[in-house]
């Protein structure tokens, strides 16, 4: 890392997140003036253009790659048109101990006087929540499922390589061609399409304006700059900003700046979930790198400097925090950019190139919170590359995570994507599978699967509140066999999934009608061709996902019931349910017995793993194929991010001996402490899940550094990963830390500011996690060699 990058990194690391009301103010004033004058897509595009023309822009000292989402690094804009922070939210954000967002008194006053009065009742959230049914509210409030779209817009967007061969001017030509093809005689949608295409056109212009303003600023700065070296740099920045994104890039510097402007465009336009991701950055940038290096205009170190400048830009963008109760609960918050390295090319050849290795080096040197990254491993990936990634894993940054490209491709082909598009896809967000640049990949919310068992055991009543929140499927005393219990569970599951999807399909139309994203639509095939928005079925692929949580907890719970209640008849079901509803009070012996004498998931024991398979299959049959509003269907993911902690809080004691309100199992990992046969057994258990039927699974493994000492251990780590992938694994990630270090970090957080751990699908600073998550990380099974 050179001195410039050191300074930039330090600055980015130390910058404190602030809420900036600038965007909210501009949007509010714009809506007051213009609402009702234009069609919705055009209104949204003009709003975007207004922001690109007026929002404060920033070029910092030392910077080579320029542009921020807010007025300064880590100044976070808000999106009141989606969800409007209350004064109380802002106070909590300002004062909470974990990663606070500073809110100035002036911003607070602007919110009170301008923003809140206008958006109350108008924001998307205010139009969603009151319109959901009573049944939905009962389940939602009890923590049976969550809803993504009440906080942020649908997102999860990852780009393919088109922006490296086309500039905004080229996109505008495409849009014009699509407009020329519109047939007002035969196509009843022609008007809607025209509005959308006009909106796209305005968005492209907006993006060019935004870049040009940066060029002007750089020129102004160059005029007063005394350092002649910096003058040259500023002049080069100005030149680059005049060229991209209007035109296609031709140098590595231009290509990186191109991406960065486009990235900013999408996150200024809207606040999508897992906002934006460049996709296969090594493949996209390699031609520029090769050309520059061979042409002698750039050496490897200069290329690295540019890439590291981009890395720091990602870290400058803290995500806008949530509103409502969750403002207090969620700690650090980022945009989950997850850069894919390696994998396959569209034609099926190996995607690893020289830049893939250089990116690993960049990651090693920068290792900040964002961007996250992953390596894609196919059957064609060279061992040398995976081994290099394993060496990076050993350092304990929590990334890169590792994905099985072959499995990912099969997952996509299974749901009807073209093979080339599937190969070009990979991971977006945490572990989710997507076809980059061609898909609207909508995560709709998490499903608390163990909670559904609790409702089954209590005949639709939530034992935590005593309220009836679901259908009646029989009292515990009526279940005479394990099969009859599973049958009742199935009915509960079907009811709950239907309620969730009915809600989603309503919300989906609100976004399609009220909150289109014309700039994002320019970037995703085939929105231009179809004249339809990203949120309205414009992309080539439109998929919806429900993320199922707690497969470990429910498997272990059912395994305990099967063995001890139905097979060996050691307990009456009604008595056990009573014990659970009293959180094992005075029943520690029973709890220990259940925890220690039950076959648990994660041990390569078919007795437990067969139950996992049966539940997985039930989830699949219930969710997969359900219709969304775009003529396509729902699928499922096996992912919890950090939601297993929230869901655990909303869940009473469970038959596997888990106490009430403690976290559920995460992702597709076994319950904490349930796996006692080492990592190969965990992997074998996981491999029994037919992962190809999902859009992603998540396996956390924690290793002590001692286990990964030496080249031989690195080799064995690689073999472990390759074996998991050979037998059908989708994803695996490693936390390389020991529990003593973590406990010490809890005691002396100031000494561990740098300690990154893998939380779920992403890495976070350990000291920024709340105690729940800290304890949870410590509790995860340690694969220790004794």
């Amino acid at each position, binding site marked *: 890392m050179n001195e410039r990058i050191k300074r930039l990194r330090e600055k980015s690391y130390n910058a404190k997140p602030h809420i900036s009301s600038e965007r909210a103010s501009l949007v509010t004033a714009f809506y007051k003036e213009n609402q009702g004058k234009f069609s919705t897509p055009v209104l949204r595009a003009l709003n975007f253009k207004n922001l690109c023309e007026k929002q404060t822009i920033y070029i910092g000292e030392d910077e080579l790659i320029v542009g921020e989402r807010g007025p300064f690094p880590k100044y976070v804009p808000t999106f009141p048109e989606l969800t409007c922070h209350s004064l109380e939210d802002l106070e909590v954000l300002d004062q909470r101990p974990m990663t606070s967002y500073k809110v100035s008194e002036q911003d607070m006053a602007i919110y009170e006087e301008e923003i809140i009065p206008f958006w109350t009742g108008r924001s998307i959230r205010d139009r969603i929540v009151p319109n959901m049914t009573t049944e939905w509210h009962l389940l939602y409030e009890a923590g049976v499922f969550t809803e993504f779209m009440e906080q942020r817009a649908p997102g999860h967007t990852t780009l393919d390589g088109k922006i490296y061969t086309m500039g905004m001017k080229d996109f505008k030509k495409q849009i014009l061609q699509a407009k020329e093809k519109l047939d007002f005689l035969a196509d009843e949608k022609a008007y809607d399409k025209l509005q959308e295409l006009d909106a796209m056109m305005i968005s492209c212009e907006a993006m060019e304006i935004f870049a040009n303003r940066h060029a002007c600023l750089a020129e102004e700065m160059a005029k007063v700059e005394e350092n002649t070296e910096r003058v040259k740099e500023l002049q080069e920045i100005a030149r680059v900003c005049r060229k991209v994104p209007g035109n296609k890039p031709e140098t590595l510097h231009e290509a990186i700046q191109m991406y960065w402007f486009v990235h900013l465009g999408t996150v200024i336009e809207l606040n999508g979930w897992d906002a934006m991701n460049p996709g296969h950055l090594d493949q996209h940038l390699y031609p520029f790198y090769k050309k520059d290096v061979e042409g002698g205009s750039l050496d490897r170190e200069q290329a690295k400097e540019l890439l590291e400048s981009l890395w720091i830009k990602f870290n400058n963008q803290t995500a806008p925090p949530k509103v409502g109760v969750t403002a207090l609960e969620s700690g650090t918050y980022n945009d989950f950019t997850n850069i894919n390295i390696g994998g396959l090319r569209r034609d099926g050849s190996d995607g690893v190139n020289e830049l893939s290795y250089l990116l690993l080096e960049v990651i090693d040197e920068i290792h900040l919170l964002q961007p996250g990254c992953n390596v894609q491993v196919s059957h064609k990936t060279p061992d040398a590359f995976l081994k290099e990634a394993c060496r990076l894993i050993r350092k304990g940054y929590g990334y890169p995570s590792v994905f099985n490209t072959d499995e990912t491709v099969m997952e996509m082909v299974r749901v009807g994507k073209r093979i080339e598009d599937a190969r070009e896809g990979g991971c977006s967000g945490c572990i989710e599978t997507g076809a980059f640049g061609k898909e609207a990949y909508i995560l709709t919310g998490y499903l608390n699967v163990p909670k559904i068992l609790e409702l089954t055991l209590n005949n639709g009543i939530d034992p935590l509140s005593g309220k009836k929140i679901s259908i009646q499927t029989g009292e515990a005393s009526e279940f005479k066999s394990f099969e009859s219990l599973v049958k009742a569970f199935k009915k509960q599951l079907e009811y709950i999934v239907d309620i969730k999807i009915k809600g989603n399909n309503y919300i989906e139309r609100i976004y399609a009608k009220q909150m289109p994203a014309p700039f994002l639509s320019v970037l995703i095939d085939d929105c231009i061709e179809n004249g339809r928005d990203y949120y309205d079925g414009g992309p080539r692929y439109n998929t919806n996902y429900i993320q199922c949580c707690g497969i470990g907890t429910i498997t272990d719970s059912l395994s305990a019931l099967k063995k001890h209640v139905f097979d060996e008849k050691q307990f009456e079901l009604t008595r056990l349910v009573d014990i659970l509803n009293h959180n094992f009070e005075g029943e520690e012996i029973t709890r220990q017995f259940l925890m220690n004498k039950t076959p648990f998931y994660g041990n*390569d024991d078919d007795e437990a793993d067969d139950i996992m398979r049966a539940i997985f299959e039930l989830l699949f049959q219930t969710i997969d194929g359900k219709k969304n509003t775009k003529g396509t269907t729902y699928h499922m993911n096996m992912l919890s991010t950090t939601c297993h902690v929230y869901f655990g809080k909303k869940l009473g004691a469970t038959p596997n001996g888990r106490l009430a309100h403690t976290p559920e199992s995460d992702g597709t990992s076994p319950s904490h402490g349930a796996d006692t046969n*080492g990592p190969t*057994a965990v992997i074998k258990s996981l491999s029994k899940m037919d992962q190809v039927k999902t859009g992603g699974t998540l396996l956390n493994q924690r290793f002590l550094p001692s286990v990964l000492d030496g080249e*031989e251990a690195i080799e064995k780590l690689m073999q472990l990963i390759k074996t998991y992938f050979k037998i059908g694994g989708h994803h695996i990630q490693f936390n390389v830390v020991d529990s003593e270090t973590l406990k010490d970090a809890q005691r002396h957080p100031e000494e561990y500011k740098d300690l990154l751990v893998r939380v779920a699908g992403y890495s976070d600073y350990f000291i920024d996690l709340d105690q729940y998550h800290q304890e949870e990380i410590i509790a995860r099974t340690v694969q220790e060699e004794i």
Partner: protein
Amino acid sequence: MKGTIFNIKRYSIHDGPGIRTTVFLKGCPLNCVWCHNPEGIEPGASFFYDARKCLNCMSCVRSCPQGCISISEGAIKIEFDRCTHCDACVKACPSNALTKNGVCYASDELMEMVKKDIPFFDESGGGVTFSGGEPMLQFDFIHEMLLKCKEQGIRTAVDTSGYASVEKFDKIRRLVDVFLYDIKFADEADHIQYTGVSNKLILKNLEFLLLQDATIWIRIPLIPGINDTQKNINETIRILKEIGFSGRVHLLAYHDLSTVKRQKMVEQANRKTKGAIFKNNRQLEPDMIKENFQSQGFEVKVGG
């Protein structure tokens, strides 16, 4: 045929090449004072009792059909002469404070366990390692297991003290891909003092296996103050060269985790393992010993 196994450890990465499953067979003719697996010394089944886990629920006492268990003041007493090894107590213990060392496995049953990690063996060049105890003590069982492994194409290793008849080694040598062969002392008197047996047979077998072209990794546990002396290292090198060994040498660090195990072992009247802790008396640093071997042309690794 049945064997008595006290542990099966998957993802074993320090007991031979690749990712392995190590099967620990019970019973050992040696009685090394530092033994890391003291629960493996007795040939028959025995028990662990972990007072910290015990809930004092008396489930074990109540469940015993022989009435031969009692617990008082954090200590368990089992009258072994009346114990029929019905395992009722172990099954009844809710917290796994009472567990058993030594489970009988039929060879087919054990093969099913071993086969579980074949995908990992294939990818890593690993396989199964028979360890102990001394695996050669249950010779007929291990012989049958080795044959079955070969039938299934599973690579094998035998981790041995070398203390068994030469005929037995002759009978299995073709079925074993690598012997992990312990050399503890060069001097016979030291060997007898600290392990209870002479090293003559051990060295004879080593020589025999070398003559038969068996693949051998020598393993030397470094016990501070006991065998990490310059004298013992020099002598060991001399003997190995004399026998004609020139391959891999693994230096295994001492750890005192066995103390916890010894505390947990339920007292048996005729128990012969005593054990001791070796901590502050290190003579030569492992890296120094490594250099000693390397300078004599051996390929050395610190660790398994």
